[in-house]
């Protein structure tokens, strides 16, 4: 049961990270974590550190690239940027998500009385 939950979370987290990087350009892990928290209006409260487990997976799949750089406050930080393959994946995932969301939406709208 716990696994199912984290699996769903993992999938959505991947999608959210890719979308964030696509929309905002290269960001460091802290920035991504903060951004996702803001957007989800603090609904996803996990250890910020877990974002890196997602990031390393995306790096290894070749969907994002990582490199050390300097942050806006002049600190050393690792920056992540979406790759070409990542954009393709994002597009595919988005379509998929919308289709699933559409189906679920229609299912939930069914009126039991009719």
């Amino acid at each position, binding site marked *: 049961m716990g696994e199912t939950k984290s699996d769903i979370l993992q999938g959505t987290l991947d999608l959210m990270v890719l979308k964030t990087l696509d929309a905002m350009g290269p960001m*460091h*892990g*802290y920035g991504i*974590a903060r951004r996702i928290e803001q957007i989800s209006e603090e609904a996803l409260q996990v*250890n*910020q*550190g*877990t974002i*890196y*487990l997602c990031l*390393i*997976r995306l*790096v*290894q*799949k*070749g*969907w994002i690239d990582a490199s050390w750089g300097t*942050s806006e*406050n002049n*600190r*050393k*930080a*690792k920056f992540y940027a979406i790759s070409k*393959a990542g954009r393709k*994946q994002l597009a595919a995932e988005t379509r998929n998500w919308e289709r699933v969301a559409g189906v679920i939406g229609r299912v939930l709208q069914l009126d039991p009385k009719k």
Partner: protein
Amino acid sequence: MARLTHLLSRIAALFRRAADDDDFARELESHVEMLTADNIARGMPPVEARRAARVRVGAPSSLVMQHRDARTLPALGNLLQDLRFAGRLLARDKWFSAAAVIALALGIGANTLGFTIINAAFIRGFAFEAAEEIHAVSWRPTRGRRLASGVLDFEDWQTQSRSFASLAASSRHAINISDDVATPQQTQGASITANFFDVLRQRTLLGRALAAGEDRPGADPVVIIGYDLWRNRFDRDPSVIGRTLRIDGRAATIVGVMPDGMKFPDDSELWVPLVQAELPRVRNTRSLSVFGRLNPGVTREQAAAEIDGIAQRVIAANPDIANSVMGGQVETLQSRFLNGNAPRMFVVVMGAVMFVLLIACANVATLLLSRAMYRGREVAVRYSLGATRWRVVRQLLIESVTLSVAGGLLGLALATAGVRVFDSAVQATGAPYWLRFTIDYRVVLYVAVICIATGVLFGLAPALQVSRQSPHETLKESGRGTAGNRRGGRLGNTLVIAELALTILLLFGAGLMLRSFMSLYASPAGFELTGLTRMRMQLPPSNYPTPEARGRFFAQLLPKVQGIAGIRDAALSTAVPPLDHEEWRFEIDGRRYEDDRPRPFTSTVLATPNYFDVLGVRIVRGRALNDQDGAAGADNVVISQVMADRFFRGEDPIGRQIRFMARDDEPAPRSWRTIVGVAAPFSQGSTDEAFRSPVVFIPFREAPSRTTSIIVRSALPPSSVMSGVRAAVQSLDADQPVFAIETLADVFAEERSIYRIFATLFAVLASIGIVLSAVGVYGVMAYAVAQRTQEIGVRMAVGAGRWDVAWLFLKRGLAQIAIALAIGLPAALALGSVLQLQLVEVEPADPVTFIAIVVVLAAVALSACLAPVRKAARVDPVIALRAD
């Protein structure tokens, strides 16, 4: 795709674990700092801000570990760790590892050689596309393995069989080729049906194969040449296509060249169309080898049943062929082309190398077990640190598999060298062209499987043994004794006895094979070989259609050859000792025979009267043939001593009459012939049956044969004999080649070299077995001594002498040898009788082999005991008792 990159990068990440961990720790730290800065900006006090940031991010140590697991492959990582550990350990115990790796390399190397032989002979097969579909169709004869098909038979197979997609036929014969450029030459040729290469799915290197209709009468004569001929006679000239070559004197156009290594079916160098219409349409002339591809889904057995059914109908309709054929058969190409003892010899070799491998495994297992003693404490510590038994066993198995893989790699290298030597030795004996012993992917795959299997096989028992202990006891004993408890000792003993018994079996089997091969190899010719040279010629029927024409040619040739300066004498014969003989059934005048019982067989040789003189074979009774013999009314023959002994026991054969029985194509038995002499035994007939086959010598002039050998006795070197004879032949017929020029000494050596090769092979295998078992005995004895050092100390302290201690261990070694002999010798006897059924010439209870083995094995095993026993006798009780 993404999945693959993911997997690869995870594997790659395994190898930079520390650097990546570091990198991630820095990344986390930078994260915490940024969060702290933001917290401060929100108004938290700095200390509080940092604490809150740490909580928000999570515990770094756990995150680093999770990150590592996500980044790498944890299972593989453990494995690598085990491997690294195993590698370190094996590198530390240099001598142990070297001994084990060498033992395994010998075992696996020998096994690889064995499998390479089996692979070449039975598995790899022919280099045709889907070659396993191709089968040979033939008659099942009343005597022998197979009989070729006649043209009517071929038509019946073709029209009535549904199992084959298509059937092709070929017949072999020597072909003389000549042109206006190079000297005439004799080649091994094959006449083939036009669909022959289509059935084989064999493409040409240059030009084309036969076109449909080119095997009809009246078609333009064409020829396809083999690669060797193209290279040697035409110097790889691509413009050879379209050129004209005379085939037995008739011009034909070269239309194709076959690729290198394609010599199907009989080491053929030349293929010409088989004009079926020119073959006699009778049942009893059979010259066609028939091949075909089975239809998809048809098994060989189904096809064989169908062909046999057709054959039975043919026999029923033609009862006169029933005394030579019993039915039809369908064979795989391998069994069609591997004849005689070769397949059984190969299987015996495979058996022997399996023994060698088992001995190597037992040997390494004893070594591992001896070492396990020192591993006791390490294993106990691992247990107490929470390792599971599986993890401990796995670690030990990884060690043994590492050993076997190292041994396998070395073994493969040894085998590669061995296979090369073996292959060139066997090639030199005139093995069929397709039987090449090479290491291919199948062999490598086999070695890989064998490596893993042996690693587990010899590693499992010691691993289970070591891992069985309780950490408690071991640590309490402060590492002494430990895994080397009673059970360990018993296991070691069993292993050594098994190893010795296996070695006895191996030595015995190898010894028997060796002795039979050597006796075959060394069997005397029965006459003086030096100074004898043979040459062969084949007169094409186009120029010499009748025996009379051939007789005239030879009658002119023989005096010319005899007149060459330096040639002492020359004889003509259809057979050259020890080879070539034709077999006939015969009966003796005045004997009663039951009508339907088949008569006995004898070899026949046609020879000129001076044949015995030239060879130097004595006539022991009566007289040799003379010039009048073989003329009308003088049907006289000489028989061999074997024939006299076997068929005229207690009688005088001189003056008795024999006649050869009718063959299928003859209405009645041939005329009676009178025996005028008996020749001393000499090696004529097949080598396997040297001295044992009866021979009848018939005057050559009676039926001068197409294929005839000239045997020359001369002190000249063979090359000058050859050029003299060649000049003599070509002064009579410029297109007639002379070939197969060899000294008789070479003919004998080549014919028998296969025995020497296999004898050497078995000798090598036996030596490996001896070395391995000696190492095994040594290992276990050394282990026992090391394990009982303290006990020895105690015994000595209470008054035992050095001899008592030595005897304590020696006794054990002797017991091992005695038990091994008690098990091994009866088993060896059983093995001997199995081998004798197969191919051994020597009695299985051959006392020489038996005694030699017992002596050698006991001597080797005892001397292997000596070093550890000496060490035991020299134990200093003071040191032994003080030792931890």
